[in-house]
């Protein structure tokens, strides 16, 4: 009896213990990376597990920034040159598709929706070869078009799925009122459905922003000239350029690469958590 009582009392402490240990494993590597980017050289980095540099210096940041042909900021800018159009295209096309699936009845709707959802499980690597040949024929290689254009045609059906789940829960009576006021279906989407779907739309935008700014394989396949490199490729270039590898430079630019994503994540944490949960739970 006594032992049981003791065990129950110490449960919260055990839980905190687990959480803190795991949290340590999650965060310490990242903190070590940030700390190391302020250290003077490899010798200092690889001689201690401490985070703080002996003499913190920005040197790695300035030398890393200018280490390749273009300033690192240029690669960062390139990233958003295709990420922003991609986010816009994704939202527009996914909203239209989800609107069709939730607010209209037409023949073969269920079949089409099943097809749409089943492409969620279609590995991108299987599609790469013909897509590459297609874009090559259109003379789109070494541009951002192969990365941007498909997103305007709702190819990332995950977002369609999330929006459908959300739109299904919206009541019909507001649309009815709008209809009586003379709104056509496009106006009803714009004035009634889209504003109500805003939380789901925001989380779709955030996820697409994150995923496409992190995308590596797409740019690796389609972008060849260094002038057009996004940060993902710029960072690789820096690693290759560093013979003998000065880690602090590479780490400093890694931190720079991650910084915008981190800021977005911390500003919109709840949206991320709700968004991913919404996608999973109702399926």
């Amino acid at each position: 009896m006594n032992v049981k009582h003791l065990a129950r009392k110490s449960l919260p402490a055990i839980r905190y213990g687990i959480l803190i240990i795991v949290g340590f494993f999650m965060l310490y590597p990242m903190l070590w990376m940030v700390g190391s980017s302020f250290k003077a050289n490899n010798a200092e980095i690889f001689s201690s597990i401490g985070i703080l540099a002996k003499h913190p210096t920005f040197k790695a940041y300035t030398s890393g920034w200018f280490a390749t042909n273009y300033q690192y900021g240029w690669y960062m800018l390139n990233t958003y040159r295709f990420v922003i159009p991609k986010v816009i295209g994704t939202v527009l096309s996914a909203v239209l598709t989800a609107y069709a699936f939730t607010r209209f009845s037409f023949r073969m709707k269920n079949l089409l929706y099943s097809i749409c959802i089943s492409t969620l499980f279609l590995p991108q690597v299987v599609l790469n070869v013909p897509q590459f040949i297609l874009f090559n024929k259109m003379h789109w290689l070494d541009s951002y078009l192969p990365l941007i254009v498909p997103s305007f045609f709702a190819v990332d059906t995950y977002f369609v799925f999330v929006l459908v789940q959300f739109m299904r829960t919206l009541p019909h009576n507001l649309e009815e009122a709008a209809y009586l006021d003379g709104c056509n279906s496009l106006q009803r989407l714009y004035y009634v459905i889209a504003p109500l779907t805003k939380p789901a739309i925001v989380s779709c935008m955030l996820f697409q922003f994150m995923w496409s700014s992190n995308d590596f394989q797409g740019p690796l396949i389609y972008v060849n000239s260094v002038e057009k490199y996004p940060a993902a490729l710029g960072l690789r270039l820096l690693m290759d350029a560093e013979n003998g590898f000065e880690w602090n430079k590479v780490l400093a630019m890694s931190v720079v690469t991650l910084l915008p994503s981190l800021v977005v994540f911390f500003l919109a944490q709840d949206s991320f958590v709700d968004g991913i949960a919404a996608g999973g739970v109702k399926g």
Partner: protein
Amino acid sequence: MKRNDRKAIDSHKKNLGMGRNTGYLYLLPWMIGFAVFKLYPILATAFYSFTNYNLFNTNLRFVGLKNYTTIFQSPKYMNSFGVTSRFALLTVPLKLVFALFIASVLNYKLKGIKFFRTAYYVPSILGGSVAISVLWQFLWQDDGLINQVGQIFNIPKVNWLGDARYTLLVICLLRVWQFGSAMVIFLAALKGVPTELYEAASIDGANRRQQFFHITIPLITPIIFYNLVTQICAAFQEFNGPYIITAGGPMGSTTLISLLIYQNAFKTYNMGMASALAWLLFIIVAVLTIIAFASQKRWVYYDEDQK
């Protein structure tokens, strides 16, 4: 009740005067996208896989099953199937079990939960980034954090990235470390389990472990299923980790199929061979997904109302 609802919706649709084809109009972008960027490529991949198609070789010839027989006879290719399976077999269960375990700890009302949830989620949000692969490579260096910590406990240094026995494990751990998004999904599911069930069970004398295995797990099987399928699909598509951290080496120990597809397609422009590999990968993923869906009846519990 339900029937009435449906009737109301049906009549309302008629009332809103939507033509039979208005729906198709809104569906048009997706239909074009599906046809051009999904259906055509998957068929074209199948077609190319029976040819010697090379971007620089204009004379396209049918070679029958030659690409496939080459794959099945080559130790290099067969090895990559083994590596990919091992990668998936190690990553998926580890990640799911860990995500569920942490989610169930986070599900208790403790102070500061939000902080921990965020801390665990960050790695998977940033996970696809090249910068995270750089970080991983950095940690497992000869004098990296992992070996330095090991030395504190008198564990001899391990050549994590150079010894073929350990490299795949390092690549797997990168993905397991990113258990955050699976965890967030589990956490939402756990919050949906009605508390009355636990109360009833504890009145009947069930302890926490029994409650977990006999109430929690059965009720969240749809989510376990969802996570399982998405993680399997993700595992078979893994690319960044092995490409950036180990470049498939040493001695092919981290050469996943996706790396060989990339090499064939975009380094040597041997599209026929790449297509055959891609098609095989597709069949593997499809078969696993179908098995998972078929097995649903045996272990996934769906609420009557939901169906």
